[in-house]
């Protein structure tokens, strides 16, 4: 028996629900294995995951707080991947964005919050964007592979940040600990709810998703991005300025990742250090792909990934299981959802050998 794949034109809502449910169930079943291995009870664990992610205002706030940078890095990946620009460098762009936020917002400029916050955001966006424009130019000029270059730049940027926070940017009040001077209070994002960590970065992320949706669906640039991504040669032939479009995509993509950095610094941390991001840039790729590169879907995918992590992490604490379980649960859920997405795109047909006509 062999099987054959047939592309589905469009999946029905019922199928989508079914697949999401199936993926969720599969993930739960898989998660039971490590939980049992560590001597815990899977059913308690399931309850605790949900509770840890959504069970209280605090939990919800933490989930959304963690989703915030993922939305932005997810959008960064989504827009780049649409143009087949393989930006694996959101991590580095995030740090560069955060770095410029600190450069601009820690006292260099004195202005009221109404102006300072947008200034800081623009600085982070532009810096992140430039960070992606470099590999894009190298690709265009020299044919250098952007996957590798953006990946390598991540390491360079993090080392640069380390160097700066140990050197010129070091906070004299940090007692020697390598961290930068803090942002001015006027440059920081307000909390959405007092005493909870979620902040205006979330609004920025959601707004960015909506804007990107408009860009992709409604604008000429979105049209051009799609054409350039799907068939560069045909786009060029039809007169779409391929290189310029790619550079615009690079600016937007890197810029969004840079905004993620601004958001972490201005919304959560208050200053820059080399441990600002636990891999938000890489997770953004996963988020974007889970969302099928859809801008609005990215918001949901980011909340999903954040909720799984926060919930599982909280569960590990409540059950006394090693907290490395959290990443494991995220990995397992991710793989299940990925496979689920496959069933939405394809229908599987089983083939028997065609029966020979009798007596031929």
């Amino acid at each position: 028996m062999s099987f054959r794949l047939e592309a589905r034109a469009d999946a029905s809502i019922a199928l989508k629900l079914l697949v999401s449910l199936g993926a969720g169930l599969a993930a739960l079943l898989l998660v039971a294995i490590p939980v049992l291995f560590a001597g815990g009870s899977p059913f308690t664990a399931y309850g605790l995951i949900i509770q840890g992610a959504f069970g209280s205002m605090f939990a919800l706030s933490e989930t959304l707080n963690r989703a915030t940078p993922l939305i932005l890095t997810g959008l960064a990946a989504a827009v780049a991947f649409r143009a087949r620009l393989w930006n694996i460098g959101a991590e580095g762009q995030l740090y560069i964005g955060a770095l410029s936020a600190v450069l601009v917002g820690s006292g260099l400029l004195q202005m009221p919050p109404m102006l300072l916050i947008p200034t800081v955001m623009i600085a982070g966006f532009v810096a992140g964007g430039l960070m992606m424009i470099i590999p894009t130019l190298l690709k265009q000029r020299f044919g250098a592979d952007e996957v590798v270059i953006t990946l390598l730049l991540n390491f360079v940027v993090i080392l640069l940040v380390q160097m700066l926070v140990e050197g010129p940017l070091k906070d004299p009040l940090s007692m020697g600990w390598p961290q930068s001077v803090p942002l001015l209070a006027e440059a920081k994002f307000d909390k959405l709810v007092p005493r909870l960590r979620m902040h205006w970065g979330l609004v920025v992320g959601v707004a960015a998703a909506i804007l990107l949706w408009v860009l992709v669906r409604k604008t000429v640039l979105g049209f051009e991005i799609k054409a350039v991504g799907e068939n560069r040669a045909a786009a060029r032939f039809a007169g779409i300025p391929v290189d310029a479009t790619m550079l615009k995509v690079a600016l937007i993509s890197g810029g969004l990742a840079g905004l993620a950095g601004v958001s972490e610094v201005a919304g959560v941390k208050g200053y820059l250090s080399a441990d600002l991001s636990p891999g938000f840039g890489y997770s953004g790729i996963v988020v974007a792909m889970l969302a099928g590169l859809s801008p609005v879907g990215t918001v949901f995918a980011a909340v999903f990934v954040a909720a799984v992590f926060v919930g599982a992490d909280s569960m590990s604490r409540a059950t006394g299981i090693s907290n490395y379980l959290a990443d494991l649960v995220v990995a397992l859920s991710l793989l299940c959802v990925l496979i689920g997405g496959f069933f939405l795109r394809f229908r599987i047909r089983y083939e028997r050998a065609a029966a020979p006509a009798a007596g031929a």
Partner: protein
Amino acid sequence: AQDVIKVAAVWTVPVEQQWASRLHNALVAAQERGEIEYVYSENTTATDYERVMREYAEQGVALMIGEAFAVEAPARAVAADYPEISFLMGSSLPPVEPNFATFDNFIQEPSYLTGMIAGAKTESNVIGMVGGFAIPEVNRLMNAFIAGALSVNPEAKFSISFINSWYDPPKAKEAAFAMVDAGADILYAERFGVSDAAKERGILAIGNVIDTSADYPGTILASALWDGTPMIDKAIADVKGGSFTASDYGIYAFMEYGGSSAVYDEALAGADAVAAAKAKEAEILDGSFKVEINDAEPSSTL
């Protein structure tokens, strides 16, 4: 027996890391003695740190231990929100009333002493030192070690490198090899991996924080040890007795409190050197000698 209190620790590193392991082991020991119920999270990122603290706080622990170095502001904010919980956090900043106490591994005293041993022993007058990151609590120990070595051997030179990782023993080993190749005959093993290089090349090493002499027979000249037990036990007792205050528990790392000590392999180090170190140790204990705390980044002097 008094009632068992719940203690939570939030580590930014895995619990094997030398630094955290000293406290982790002390906490495990207290748990095994039935004094506390101990829960912990390890490898917690800066981003997650505040959430983890709050989750433990909501679970209702009596004492929370951790490292505030990279997360001073949120850690202090959490403490402010939970005045009924006692916080004992690694920090380079002062404690905050009423419940935020601080500590650090102030083992510069034994480091100085091991420096004396190394300074006396080196023949090439080159000592290699491999560190993780150049942060205050690493710099402080290296500087004390260097001061100790120079006090007995002004000719001593130091080769220093940082591998920019807490956990990359193969890399630390390579850095150590490089120092041997540059002429070092004694290695200061701030990280895992350095003593391995010393052992492989048949030279000597100085241990840091934990005693690994059994793992490297004939290699470890002396070690500056940190013992978290006095501080942890004191903190547990203080919490139980209601006398926990927002003070600096860092002093419990000092030799006079038994929080740190120097151990020597007299056969390797030589009786004279050990005697000199022990004499200095006595001065430290009686307060007549103070080891300077210098958090500046040290650099090679080859």
